[in-house]
């Protein structure tokens, strides 16, 4: 398998789903994210790469206002979803997060059964009428997350009893069960074996037909395989953002080049 194979770069649309302009994040006095401008395109997979601690997760959490739950975090600048400022006072973060799903860096299944974990979102948003529909949502979500075959006989077992990689796929299933418009994935494959990784990457590619996907990854190969757009972060700055093929074959910034060739990070 040629790992650096570049997937076809056709981007279905060029409309921006989310736009960030001069986005800043402070944790107390720590300026963690500086002047980030990004357009996340509709029906596209965008990869965020960069060394540890450069602010990838921080920026991801800005996109669905999860930083609101961190007391010390302050977000400035402008972030829009479909042309609407998501930090506007009139926007309800709860509604926003239902539209922008998230898979966290560390798997965090609820201490409930596998079924209840996946059914959680559909239940609180009233997406299913009746038990049969809910069952169907749970089943398709688990199938998409490549977990169905492993858990179909023990849907009542606690989700916390699964292995780390299975838990992460459960969290993916949980996130796609609410059918969000944008899916944010923070290192979804860091605990997965190659087979499950390939399945999740397949899922990401499949999801692209319905949503925008943003994926944070430390694997250059993965970024090259699954994404159409890549953003490289370094020390809180967005260094370079562009078409994945261009970033990996012909980076403009010397820092990007040394990172992808393994000299920094």
């Amino acid at each position, binding site marked *: 398998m040629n790992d650096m194979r570049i997937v076809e770069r056709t981007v279905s649309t060029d409309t921006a789903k989310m736009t960030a302009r001069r986005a800043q994040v402070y944790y107390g006095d720590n300026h963690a994210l500086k002047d980030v401008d990004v357009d996340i395109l509709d029906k596209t997979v965008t990869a965020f790469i960069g060394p540890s601690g450069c602010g990838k997760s921080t920026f991801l959490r800005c996109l*669905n206002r*999860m930083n609101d*739950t961190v*007391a010390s975090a302050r977000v400035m600048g402008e972030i829009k979803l479909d042309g609407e400022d998501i930090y506007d006072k009139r926007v309800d973060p*709860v*509604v*926003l*997060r*239902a*539209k922008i*799903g*998230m898979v*966290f860096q*560390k798997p*965090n*299944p*609820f*201490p*409930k059964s596998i079924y209840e974990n996946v059914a*959680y*979102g559909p239940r*609180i*948003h009233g997406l299913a009428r009746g038990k049969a529909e809910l069952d169907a949502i749970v089943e398709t979500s688990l199938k998409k997350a490549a977990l169905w075959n492993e858990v179909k006989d023990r849907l009542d077992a*606690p989700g*916390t009893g699964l292995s780390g990689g299975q838990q992460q796929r459960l*969290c993916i299933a*949980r*996130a796609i069960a*609410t059918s969000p418009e944008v899916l944010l994935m923070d290192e979804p494959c860091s605990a997965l074996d190659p087979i499950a990784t390939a399945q999740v990457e397949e899922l990401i590619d499949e999801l692209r037909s319905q949503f925008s996907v943003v994926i944070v990854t430390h694997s250059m190969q993965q970024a090259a395989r699954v994404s159409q757009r890549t953003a490289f972060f370094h020390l809180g700055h967005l260094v370079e953002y562009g078409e994945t093929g261009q970033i990996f074959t012909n980076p403009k910034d010397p820092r990007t080049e040394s990172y992808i060739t393994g000299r920094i990070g």
Partner: protein
Amino acid sequence: MSVGLISLIVLGLAALGFFLGRQKALSSVKGDARLLHSLPSYYGWSVALFTAVPAMLVMIVWLFVQPTLLETQVASTIPAENIAASGNISLVMADVRRIADGLDLVAARAGLDEAGIDALRADFSDLRGRLAEVGVALGANVDGAILAAAKEYRTYSNSLRLGMSVVVLLAALIGAGFAWMRISPDLRARNLVEQFTMALLIGCSLIAVATTAGIIASLVFETWHFFQLYPAKDFFFSLTWNPQFRGGSDLGLWPLVWGTMYVSFISLVVAVPIGLMAAIYLSEYASPRMRATAKPLLEILAGIPSIVYGLFALVTVGPLLRDWIAGPLGLGNSSSSVMTAGLVMGIMLIPYVSSLSDDIINAVPQAMRDGSFGLGATQSETVKRVVIPAALPGIVGAILLAASRAIGETMIVVMGAGAAAQLSLNPFEAMTTVTVKIVSQLTGDTEFASPETLVAFALGLTLFCITLALNVLALVIVRKYREQYE
């Protein structure tokens, strides 16, 4: 030598052993500590522990055995007619002990030596008067045989004390010598200290377990006594509680258990919802500053002695309920009622529930909440569906603790609910609980061996069984519904 002095000497020996042991270990490798198996101080500790621990153990055992030895030895010298005169050997022995102590005081005041004490005679030297001068009042003149026994008691106890000093110090020296001899660079002193530490910890937990077992054993023993004087069938199945001063009492358990349950139930109905909601507010909604002020304030409530709550029940809540609720509704005209005690006890329990639950809710990992928020859940949905289920075992524990306090509470019941045992559904009537009756039966002036007094132990055992059952029940509930996070 007194116990304190012996302990001090043993500790001094241990300290000395520490330095000598450390010294020997170091000098055995010519000061190069790297050649030793363990750090030098561990060798010191191994000697110190071998010096102090066996010696202290010997002393503790000796102190436990000494009184029994003394009693049997002295009791055998007392003539049978003296025992018959006071009716009971333990009464005679109590006199002997008091006189023996008194003799010490008399000797100290009059500057008598051993020979002088020996010369004291019951019939000549107005012993009763002299003993009274030093604060030992006796009911009758000192009998010659008793005085002899007291003298015997003194000498024997002195020699036992001396024996103890010798044995304990010998044990310390032998232990120190043994440990000191063993020191060599290869001795695994570090592991030795580790094992000693573990043994110490095990010992401490054993003490806790043994105490519990002892308490239960004494309860069971006295209860068994009670059931020999009073039929168990009546205790468990009679519905009246009516102790009589001169026998023929009805000692039915149910009115008291009913009162306990009723009062506890009302107090939990007050305390659990309020306490839980306060905890949820504090841990999930309140700003850190709000939390920092509100939590200590709530905990002050927990520090108020229950008798103060009792006053509050007696003076304020009771009359208020009578005049505004019970009276107008025609439910009764007593100011002490189950409702009064239950309400006030509930207020007392709020901080128990809230403070513990707050800690437990805070221990639920933030990642759980993030997961829920990330799916678009609101704060209250997150609390209801994720946080509370994850915290449930701890919350049940907190409620259980509150329930045990409610069941064991006495003061508020006496002052709020009265002392009349009855079976009634009306919450505005006076009732009483098991604990209140335990106190009143034990402090009554009936003699100790009567069923009216011994029933207190049966009641205590019942209470113990109830709380035990509650604990087991809670454990089962928690096992069944627990949603465990890592």
